[in-house]
């Protein structure tokens, strides 16, 4: 028996998918066609294991301007303006080459947003790595942070927030999710659908090279493993200067009304852009690869069609306006070439001069991929490891300091100081100043708040409850700055969907996402799915990353998370009954297991409303949600930020049935930690637990009571640079 692998298998297509392609074409595809099918029928482009699940998500709402199916979602912010946003993954490229992988992840999400005609105004990022004691993790972290900074700083879009978690299951498969937010005049926005038979297809931006060939199918739609070095050529190289020029060029073209539609070239390059534009518009497209500006003259037609060279955009232009369009491209010193035409054939035809080198029905190419049902099965208990790094007999003070120094909890200042957070003159709350970033929108006379969250460890404990918690965390973060949610975007980072356990995680997570969005009345306006995130030791923690955008009327009224006034009362609000299950402390003790308490979404939502109204009315000195590391860490964070101590008694949590340890370090949704005038706080139902003042964090919790200086907690909380840089020398 020969071991020769059929070409379609090398490209990631199954035998039955290949047969289906032959059937739809009525013949065997040639090399160009096979390459194009293999990309558009990849998991990355076709969502073949997730599309059925995603139908559960609510996508409509009165503020939705654009929903899923466009390059990004958009919501109405008032006065004729919209906020466009989307989160997307660049996990596998970053695992192979973190600097360029992360940089081009930022570049790609920026293009998705300005493809709508929105000017990007903010970036957030959500990163996951293995534990910091691993050389690989430190290398990936350093490269990804430098890459995000390199691209975002150069192009001049503020990076206003994000999160980083360090967990062993991400050791071989880090996650790099980037979110972009843009602002657009609604009457200048443009859709991706090609329209107008006879209109020209214009390729703008960078020239096309051999980089990133097969990125979507080879890299993004299969597990990582041995021989990944050979995949390095599938990673693209970013050029933020080129993107800056093509961004300004596209926005000028839209402002002048010169484009019918616009689409970015991302995964699968020209193949997916042209195919998806034709599909959305119900038209055909002819492309002449001989007219595509190339970096290397001898590129084959299939290479030109699948190249993932960055910083390229595809526009549909009325024939009479092509000259004007190319002049604007020239002004911005970026490429512009008429490479094709919109037809009524319903076919994507690839030409090389006069010769037809590929001819496929749009329907078969873009929408013909079979969608698969999952075969989910709940695993038996906890399928991930446990590693104890903290003695269960540690004192409360030692435990608090260990939690604050834990890389997932510690301050991420080391990372976010490498990003420009102020360019654009919109950033009212920078990273760590408040629970959500706040950006003023003078165009609409108001402001937006944005947050990105997703604690994969808790989702691993219970994919349904954990996903609900991720959304609630975003909603709580927004409430802390007085914002009301308008919409959310999500990136579903999961393992191999063809295996029962990751399939079950995905299925339960999407159900949780659908249920919580319905309960909160927050539509899902866009997102991305990244599957096959596995290493040799198994799948990553299931990690739905949620990005939420909210609106607030007056940025001058926003409170921060810092304690600011001696003598202020400290109070708890919300249905917070913390437990150690799935907590950072359970991780440090090596006691993780399956299962989480089920969240009371309605009660959390009501608490969010109360906090939001209190912030808007200017009634609070500070507002912070209780998250990783529990109440004790939240108190320390407020004290560190305000450089002032506090004294509290956790008795009210004891009365909810919590042990002293649960009360101090337990986690769970629904907890707000507020400070302000005692009578005011109690007037809306908050429970006073203590007072701001002094130079220590002093907590009465029965036999777990402790007192520690604010300076000592700060030392632990700011210990991340030492953990990264010193170890990097070893």
């Amino acid at each position, binding site marked *: 028996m020969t071991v020769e692998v059929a070409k379609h298998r090398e490209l990631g297509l199954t035998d039955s998918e290949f047969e289906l392609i032959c059937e739809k074409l009525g013949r065997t595809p040639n090399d160009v066609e096979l390459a194009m099918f293999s990309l558009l029928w990849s998991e990355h482009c076709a969502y073949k294991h997730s599309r059925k699940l995603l139908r559960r998500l609510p996508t409509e709402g009165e503020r939705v301007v654009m929903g899923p199916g466009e390059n990004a979602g958009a919501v109405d912010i008032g006065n004729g303006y919209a906020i466009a946003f989307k989160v997307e993954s660049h996990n596998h490229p970053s695992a192979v080459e973190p600097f360029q992988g992360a940089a081009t992840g930022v570049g790609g999400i920026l293009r998705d947003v300005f493809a709508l005609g929105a000017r990007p105004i903010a970036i957030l990022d959500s990163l996951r790595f293995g534990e910091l004691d691993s050389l690989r993790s430190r290398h990936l972290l350093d490269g990804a942070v430098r890459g995000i*900074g390199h691209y975002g700083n150069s192009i001049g879009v503020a990076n206003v927030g994000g999160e980083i978690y360090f967990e062993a299951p991400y050791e071989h498969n880090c996650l790099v999710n980037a979110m972009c937010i843009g602002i657009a005049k609604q009457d200048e926005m443009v859709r991706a659908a090609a329209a107008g038979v006879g209109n020209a297809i214009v390729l703008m931006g960078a020239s096309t090279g051999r980089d990133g060939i097969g990125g979507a199918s080879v890299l993004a739609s299969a597990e990582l493993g041995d021989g990944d070095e050979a995949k390095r050529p599938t990673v693209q190289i970013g050029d*933020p*200067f080129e993107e800056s*020029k093509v961004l300004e060029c596209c926005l000028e073209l839209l402002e002048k009304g010169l484009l019918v539609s616009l689409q970015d070239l991302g995964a699968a390059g020209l193949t997916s852009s042209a195919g998806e534009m034709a599909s959305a518009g119900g038209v055909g497209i002819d492309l002449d690869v001989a007219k595509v500006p190339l970096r290397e003259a001898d590129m084959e037609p299939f290479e030109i069609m699948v190249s993932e060279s960055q910083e390229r955009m595809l526009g549909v232009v009325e024939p009479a306006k092509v000259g004007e369009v190319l002049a604007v491209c020239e002004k911005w010193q970026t490429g512009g070439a008429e490479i094709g035409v919109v037809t009524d054939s319903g076919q994507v035809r690839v030409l090389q001069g006069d010769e037809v080198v590929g001819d496929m029905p749009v329907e078969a190419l873009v929408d013909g991929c079979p969608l698969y049902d999952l075969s989910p099965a709940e695993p038996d208990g906890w399928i991930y490891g446990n590693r104890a790094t903290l003695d269960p007999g540690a004192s409360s003070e030692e435990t608090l300091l260990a939690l604050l120094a834990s890389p997932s909890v510690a301050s991420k200042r080391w990372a976010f100081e490498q990003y*420009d957070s*102020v360019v654009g003159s919109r950033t*009212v709350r*920078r990273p760590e100043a408040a629970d959500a970033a706040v950006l*003023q929108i003078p165009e609409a006379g108001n402001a937006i708040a944005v947050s990105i969250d997703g604690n994969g460890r808790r989702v691993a404990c219970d994919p349904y409850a954990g996903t609900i918690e991720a959304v609630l965390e975003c909603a709580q973060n927004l409430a802390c700055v007085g914002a009301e949610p308008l919409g959310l975007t999500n990136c579903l980072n999961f393992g191999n969907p063809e295996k029962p356990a990751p399939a079950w995680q995905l299925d339960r997570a999407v159900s949780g996402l659908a249920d919580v969005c319905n309960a909160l009345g927050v539509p899902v306006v866009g997102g991305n799915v990244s599957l096959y995130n596995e290493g040799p030791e198994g799948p990553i923690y299931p990690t739905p990353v949620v990005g939420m955008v909210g609106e607030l009327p007056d940025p001058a009224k926003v409170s921060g998370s810092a304690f600011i006034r001696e003598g202020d009362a400290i109070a708890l609000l919300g249905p917070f009954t913390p437990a150690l299950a799935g907590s950072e402390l359970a991780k440090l003790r090596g006691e993780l297991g399956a299962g989480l308490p089920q969240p009371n979404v309605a009660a959390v939502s009501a608490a969010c409303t109360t906090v939001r109204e209190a912030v808007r009315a200017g009634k609070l000195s500070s507002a912070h949600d209780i998250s990783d590391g529990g109440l004790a860490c939240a108190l320390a964070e407020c004290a560190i930020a305000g450089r002032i101590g506090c004294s509290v008694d956790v008795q009210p949590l004891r009365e909810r049935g919590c042990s002293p340890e649960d009360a101090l370090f337990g986690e769970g949704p629904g907890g707000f930690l507020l400070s302000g005038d005692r009578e005011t706080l109690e007037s809306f139902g908050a429970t006073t637990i203590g007072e701001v003042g002094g130079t220590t964090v002093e907590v009465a919790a029965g036999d777990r009571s402790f007192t520690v200086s604010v300076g000592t907690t700060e030392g632990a909380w700011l210990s991340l640079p030492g953990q990264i840089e010193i170890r990097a020398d070893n």
Partner: protein
Amino acid sequence: MRWGVLQFPGSCDERDALHACSLLGEARLVWHEERDLSGIDAVVVPGGFSYGDYLRAGAIARFSPAMEAVAEFAAAGGPVLGICNGFQVLCEAGLLPGALLLNESTRFTCRQLNLIPADGTKSSAYARISSRRPTLSIPAKHGEGRYYAPGEVLDRLEENGQVAYRYVPGQNPNGSARDIAGVRNEARNVVGLMPHPEHAVDPLTGSTDGLKIFEAVAAAGVPA
């Protein structure tokens, strides 16, 4: 006062600088291919990554037609403010002394910090008096902002009162020589600094101290 703010491909703080200038007078963008600065009383060379900062920060932008016009404008006594990449461009163009090197940390750093107008002070005296002088809260954000000049040039700058701004001791974010954040030319009408005064003109975004820097520049030059 009519301000002109240069715009190169790759500039990214030009709109913020335009906004800051518009708080003090009229302001317009000047495209990098323009040579005509007539009607402009003060020029801002803004921050960003002109031409991608490829080759070396500011090395390509200095050859633009607009920069030729700025050189003539400066020679005639017109006030010029270079911010961050603009400071790098002015150094590359020889309109300001010294050079900006890679940060000591090798990393881009974005941080709100305090500047002290350092007119005529030597570094030896400066630490002693800085605690008594009012400081300006301004964000800095750059990867190549370590001010460098040979020792004798630094001595001369200090003697001539050409050190325009210093970082408050302990806040130097990049390893700049003698905590220098900004310098001016001998004629005192051209000023460059790494921190971003245009991002400190609105109490909502953190500070309004940046306006004082724009005002000082406008006052220092002879309107053309």
